[in-house]
């Protein structure tokens, strides 16, 4: 199996389409070829649908995406989980565009687990929400799905009335024919659903869109402003009991013995059950379960994780960055020779720490095991993964595991993992009742799958004008894909090298990765490796500009002359931010650019230093070119969201480990950005007819280098580690 990331991926040239396809194919073959594991357990699901899934996705029966009741109630299916990114609205918009229905009159339902129908070919087939893929995957598929149903409804009306389809229109849920003949979609649905599904229905030219591309109020907003939106924590089943789970303080540790004599006698407690991940207290309220849990006396076998220490982990990662095995090397020219022969060599090392996802809704799930079948309800990013894994672990068939997805109180990658779902199912099986398992905040923060730490090493040679003549860039980090999907240790992880390649024109380059397992379990975290790699790339280019005594924007532009989309966003953002114009006293600007998820972006951060030495971010100016957009207001919202999310990583967040124990347990130790720290935004969305890019994640990655570059401009101090706390800046 050859796994390479394509070195032309960042090209702004339209001919880059082929190389993008290659990247996606390599990810697909990656997931196809790898043994599928989660938490070390063999999954009962297939991830390897690949190209067949893409083809099959265009051939769904209309009922897979559109449910029409006799009373003309139309329900559109979202196969992606709503975790704030707006798919509950954008997915139906794509279907409704071709089905010709009013979004205000439809209902939305989340798809059941069925990867054959609802899988995500951009991620290799699983029914998984992540990777900023929802719109990119649905862009054509969902419009075709809507168009298929429209054509079937028209055909049904044509047969019913004996009128050619050309004389019929389908609009706002009604088919109209000559002589003002009318039938609702509901009246035609039964006949329509018996017709063959047209393989290639007519779909509109984007210039004729009436819904897609127009800012549209989110369909989930009303339920989220009156408290009625159902999150996992809100699920109630008849006869349901509540569970709190004590897990080993060292992740991966197991129970040696438990004394539950006190806990069992506490108010409301019904039972105490042991599952592989720990000891669960089941009670008639969650508070009682959680109180009784504190009275458990457990002796743990802490396992191999007990010695983990984050300082040692970072030191070891740094060592690996020098002596570890190089994987997935991509090179052009002879950069090592150029650097060896050069008199102007610049070298830098950038590091990022472990991070927690910390969605505001802690992990939870509701499960009801009964007569060999399991009903699962709750917040997940991976429906068929949950179904298959629970089936496998409980020794039942996947079809005996049903799953209903609620709204997610944040995901950010954490809810791709399935640990808490399996636990809920195991506890329900043990007590033979419907159980809602809820983790405390402390459980959530200390039993995450952490964003891995990273070390990025860059070396450049510069020519007489100060322009880079050669560059090498190595990322050393822990492979999430290895942990989650069983990617072999000697195979390069494509999710470690996102945006690793410099977008700039440099004659000789070399990029590679070193996989180092630092020992703590790791997970995909919003923007994944884009953040570490862009923090390094965009800080480093600023350092080169400074060495060349060049303006950072002019320096970049001179190296981007063949990349019009980059040039456009860079010029737009810097002009709007007032680059080169006088600023308020004590303020400075810093810029960063990146292409990720097929989206081109530039960010400018305007910062000052507070009295305590920490950074204040006043304003963030963003220009983004993500091709066609479905809901531009949601695009704006996702950029705002990602910047604030990324600011936490840039300025204040770090997970540390001592004696195998995560040291941060709540938001006083792992702070989230608050309103008084949130910047003012100026966002420009480029009107574009390029294919759609993803927007749930990319902006997360640019804010760290934009701030670092502004801090360097303001203070002369180059901070090469995250988070950029007052101490980190002081010691830089």
């Amino acid at each position, binding site marked *: 199996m050859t796994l390479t990331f394509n070195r032309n991926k960042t090209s702004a040239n339209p001919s880059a389409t082929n190389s993008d396809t290659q990247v996606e194919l390599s990810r697909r073959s990656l997931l196809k070829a790898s043994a599928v594991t989660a938490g070390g357990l063999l999954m009962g699901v297939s991830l390897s649908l690949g190209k067949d899934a893409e083809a099959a996705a265009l051939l769904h029966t209309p009922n897979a995406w559109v449910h029409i009741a006799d009373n003309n109630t139309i329900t559109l299916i979202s196969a992606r989980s709503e*975790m704030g990114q707006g798919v509950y609205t954008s997915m139906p918009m794509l279907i409704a565009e071709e089905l010709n229905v009013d979004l205000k009159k439809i209902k939305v339902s989340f798809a059941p687990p069925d990867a054959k129908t609802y899988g995500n070919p951009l991620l290799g087939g699983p029914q998984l929400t992540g990777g900023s893929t929802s719109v990119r995957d649905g862009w054509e598929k969902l419009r075709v799905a809507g168009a298929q149903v429209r054509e079937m409804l028209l055909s049904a009306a044509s047969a019913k009335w004996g009128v050619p389809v050309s004389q019929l229109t389908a609009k706002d849920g009604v088919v109209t024919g000559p002589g003002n003949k009318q039938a609702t979609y509901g009246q035609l649905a039964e006949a329509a659903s018996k017709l063959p599904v047209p393989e290639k229905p007519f779909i509109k030219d984007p210039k004729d869109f009436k819904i897609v591309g127009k800012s549209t109020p989110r369909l989930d907003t009303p339920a989220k402003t009156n408290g009625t939106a159902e999150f996992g924590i809100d699920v*109630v089943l008849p006869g349901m009991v509540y569970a709190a789970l004590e897990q080993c303080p060292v992740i991966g540790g197991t129970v040696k013995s438990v004394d539950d004599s006190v806990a069992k006698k506490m108010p409301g407690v019904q039972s105490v059950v042991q599952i592989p991940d720990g000891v669960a207290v089941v009670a008639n309220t969650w*508070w009682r379960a959680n109180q009784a849990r504190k009275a458990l006396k457990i002796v743990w076998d802490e396992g191999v994780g007990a010695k983990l220490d984050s300082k040692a982990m970072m030191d070891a990662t740094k060592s690996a960055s020098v002596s570890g095995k190089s994987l997935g090397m991509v090179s052009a020219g002879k950069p090592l020779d150029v650097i060896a022969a050069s008199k102007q060599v610049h070298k830098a090392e950038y590091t990022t720490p472990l991070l927690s996802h910390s969605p505001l809704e802690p992990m939870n799930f509701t499960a009801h095991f009964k007569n060999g079948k399991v009903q699962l309800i709750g917040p997940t990013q991976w429906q068929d993964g949950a179904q298959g894994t629970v089936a496998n672990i409980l020794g039942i068939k996947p079809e005996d595991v049903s799953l209903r997805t609620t709204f997610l109180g*944040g*995901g950010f990658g954490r809810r791709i993992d399935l640990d808490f779902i399996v636990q809920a199912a195991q506890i329900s099986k043990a007590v033979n009742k419907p159980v809602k398992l809820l983790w405390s905040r402390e459980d959530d923060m200390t039993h995450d799958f952490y964003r891995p730490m990273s070390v990025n090493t860059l070396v450049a040679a510069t020519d007489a004008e100060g322009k880079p003549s050669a560059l090498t860039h190595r990322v050393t980090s822990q492979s999430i894909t290895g942990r989650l999907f069983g990617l072999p240790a000697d195979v390069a992880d494509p999710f470690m090298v996102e945006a690793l390649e410099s977008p700039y024109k440099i004659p000789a380059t070399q990029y590679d990765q070193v996989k180092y397992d630092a020992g703590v379990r790791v997970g995909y975290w919003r923007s994944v490796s884009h953040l570490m790699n862009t923090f390094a790339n965009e800080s480093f280019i600023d350092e080169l500009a400074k060495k060349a005594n060049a303006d950072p924007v002019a320096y970049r532009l001179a190296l981007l002359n063949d990349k019009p989309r980059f040039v456009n966003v860079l010029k737009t953002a810097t002009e709007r931010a007032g680059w080169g114009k006088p600023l308020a006293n004590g303020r400075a600007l810093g810029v960063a650019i990146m292409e990720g998820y097929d989206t081109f972006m530039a960010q400018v951060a305007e910062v000052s230093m507070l009295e305590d030495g920490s950074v204040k971010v006043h304003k963030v100016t963003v220009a983004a070119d993500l091709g066609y957009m479905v809901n531009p207001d949601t695009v704006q919202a996702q950029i705002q*969201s990602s910047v604030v999310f990324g600011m936490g990583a840039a300025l204040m967040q770090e997970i540390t480990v001592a004696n195998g124990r995560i040291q941060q347990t709540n938001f006083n130790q792992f702070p989230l950005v608050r309103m008084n720290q949130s910047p003012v935004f100026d966002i420009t969305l480029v009107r574009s007819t390029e294919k759609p890019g993803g927007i749930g994640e990319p902006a997360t990655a640019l804010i760290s280098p934009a701030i670092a570059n502004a801090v360097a401009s303001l203070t002369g101090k180059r901070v090469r580690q995250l988070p950029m706390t007052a101490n980190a800046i002081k010691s830089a």
Partner: protein
Amino acid sequence: MSVSFQLNGKTVSAKAEADTPLLWVIRDELGLTGTKYGCGAALCGACTVQLNGQAVRSCSITLQSVAGQKVTTIESMGVDNKHPLQVAWIKHDVPQCGYCQSGQLMSAQALLATNKNPTDAEIDAAMSGNVCRCGTYSRIKAAIKDAAQVMRSA
């Protein structure tokens, strides 16, 4: 033993242990799930309700401490979304994941009850106890200003 208090204008009584946090009484015993659990330590504001009109973190006050008091939750604002704050929230499409928004609305309502025309700094001060992991702050601020204007002219 049960404890009585006013919940959204109605007298209710709860049987939970007296030291049970109000949050869990509201959610699990009285069945109003609009109020959310986020941290259990008054650090995130997801559980914000009003106690006699003041924004408080219901995860960190006990059932017995609200005996005879007036407790107000998101459900008091109405399912029909007619309250000026809800109208403004919808106009600005504030929520993303939405999990923190009940608490945000409760804090915003408590602010506007005592300050009809808050400045940016006053909004920051009143709202900085409510975190939003999705970072909807700029929209929350715009919505509060909009609602304040509507409420002043009403």
